[in-house]
């Protein structure tokens, strides 16, 4: 028998999930079938799907790689400027991506870093690299914030026991800390990947949004929308929904099977 609290809480989940479901579902009602089919096999959408997935996965991977040590340092060690660093890392979450995009453009543009990078033969603005960098900085703060809170929930004594059983710091981190933080790492991976896939303004500004070259799925949606190609826009959106749903469903299932007993 379910308790009162349980019923109320589950109802709330159902209600708001239903809302979201309807909102998302509306997308599927819109396009005509022919429009959908012709759009889905267009060069444009196929290219942008490929681009979106490859850049997002790479960017998300880099984010986790940087966010894990950063969040761990913030959670475990004390060092100068720590609370300043924490605030700076939180900041970009509150920016509209467009601000981050402008700032990135400025810094990577002519003046400082840009010309130096160019002299090294590294092009960032208007390239795929630019997209990845934009996605990286948009998503990094989310990952750090979630992982910071997660590492706070992992008891450092487990790490010490591992050390006293002969494992060095790195190994302990890998074998004890990371697995214990699995739940949070998973949560932050989902958020990070989602954020990378969904970034729009920053990627548009830094990547340039060139047709078939740096046009990610969100940009494709934007373009088509501005042209009134609602069918194509919505087809792109549906594809995004399907891809995301597939990826997330698989991830959640995998996590569920692998997390038994961890949390």
């Amino acid at each position, binding site marked *: 028998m379910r308790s009162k609290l349980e019923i109320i809480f589950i109802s709330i989940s159902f209600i708001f999930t239903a809302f979201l479901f309807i909102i998302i579902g509306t997308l599927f009602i819109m396009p005509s079938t022919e429009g959908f089919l012709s759009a889905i096999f267009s060069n444009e959408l196929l290219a942008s799907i490929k681009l979106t997935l490859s850049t997002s996965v790479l960017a998300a991977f880099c984010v986790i790689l940087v966010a894990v040590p950063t969040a761990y340092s913030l959670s475990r060690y004390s060092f100068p400027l720590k609370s300043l660093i924490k605030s700076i890392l939180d900041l970009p979450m509150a920016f509209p991506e467009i601000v981050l995009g402008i700032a990135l453009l400025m810094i990577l543009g002519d003046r400082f870093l840009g010309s130096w990078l160019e002299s090294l033969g590294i092009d960032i603005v208007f390239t795929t690299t630019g997209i990845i960098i934009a996605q990286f900085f948009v998503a990094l703060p989310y990952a750090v914030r979630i992982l910071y809170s997660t590492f706070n929930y992992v*008891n450092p*004594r*487990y790490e*010490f*026991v*591992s*050390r*006293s*059983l*002969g*494992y*060095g*710091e790195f*190994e302990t981190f890998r*074998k*004890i800390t990371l*697995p*214990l933080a*699995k739940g949070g790492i998973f949560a932050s991976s989902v958020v990070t990947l989602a954020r990378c896939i969904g970034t729009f303004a920053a990627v548009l500004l830094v990547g340039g949004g060139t047709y078939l070259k740096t046009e990610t799925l969100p940009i494709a949606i934007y373009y088509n929308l501005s042209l009134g190609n609602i069918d194509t826009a919505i087809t792109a959106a549906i594809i995004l929904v399907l891809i995301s749903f597939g990826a997330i469903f698989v991830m959640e299932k995998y996590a569920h099977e692998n997390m038994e*007993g*961890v949390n």
Partner: protein
Amino acid sequence: MFLDVQNLSVKLGQFHLHDVNLSLEKNDYMVIIGPTGSGKSVLLETIAGFFTPDKGEVIMEGKKITNQSPENRGISIVYQDYVLFPHMNVFENIAYGLRKKIQKDSFISSKVEKMAKMLQIDHLLSRNPETLSGGEKQRVAIARSLVVEPNILLMDEPFAALDVNTHAYLTTLIKNVINKHQTTCIHVSHNFNDVYNLAEKVAVMKDGKILQQGTLHDVFSRPTHNFVADFVGVHNVFQGEIVGHDKSLLQIEIDPGIIIHSSDDFQHDSNDVMVAIRPENIIFSNEKFVSSVRNQLKGVVKDIFEVGHTVWIEVQVGDVTFRGVLTPNSCESLGIKREKEIYLSFKSLNVNLMECRDAYHSI
């Protein structure tokens, strides 16, 4: 010395671990006892490297390891609260330390299984630690530390959650394993059976200090501090005055007219002393008898109470109360009951003298 702890001091909030000195030979077995909150766990965890000492050194085979990282100390620790890895099953918990040293899976399996069998947890190997009972967790923690064959094994109340039989079984087991691998052990315990059955050395802690340490016999038969005497169960502790001596025997008056003889070779500046007699060293009889005992006092039984398999009686002699312990059968055959007159006899060898440091507080 194999392990030397010198002037180790740690401050944690109000608590202060205070100039702790310990010396252990290879394969020594030291049991640390002391009241709850006296700093036993903090001491073990400082030796293992979890807390950084404010002062003092930990020296292993002549090398200072005070600032060495825990993984290089060769010290393994069984925590009071187990700290089993929640993301590994029992097998993986036990195998964890081994995997660092050994690659071969079959070898690891056989070692883990053997250890698990010895600790009677082999049926639990695939279980998640969260689902174990208290005693099961504790044995997994012991197995995890023991299987790596550490140079030094620190155990913080490793048997506290075990029933008497399992406790006895593990006592024997640990003894064998320790001796086989020449492990040096420090074991914190609340159970005097661990002291009797395992300890070569005993240390008594109170308020972050080690009050006394030495061999089992030293500490239990010659407590140098009245807290120690009291804590280890020397229940007859009296304040007295040295009133004379006869050859090697000192004569101590503990109450007007009540003189006790002691053969303790006690060095005294002052004539004020503390006298300690262990209850189980007192013989009771209805009649005086002639024997080698030098102390024979007459008293009146004031109280009788059973504690487990034994009977404790309180006998008033003059204004002081002696406590003694005897089996229910002797009690019955002597017809002991309240207000009955009875004789107490004890050897002068069994009368310990201690400095009169501070007033004696009964708990």
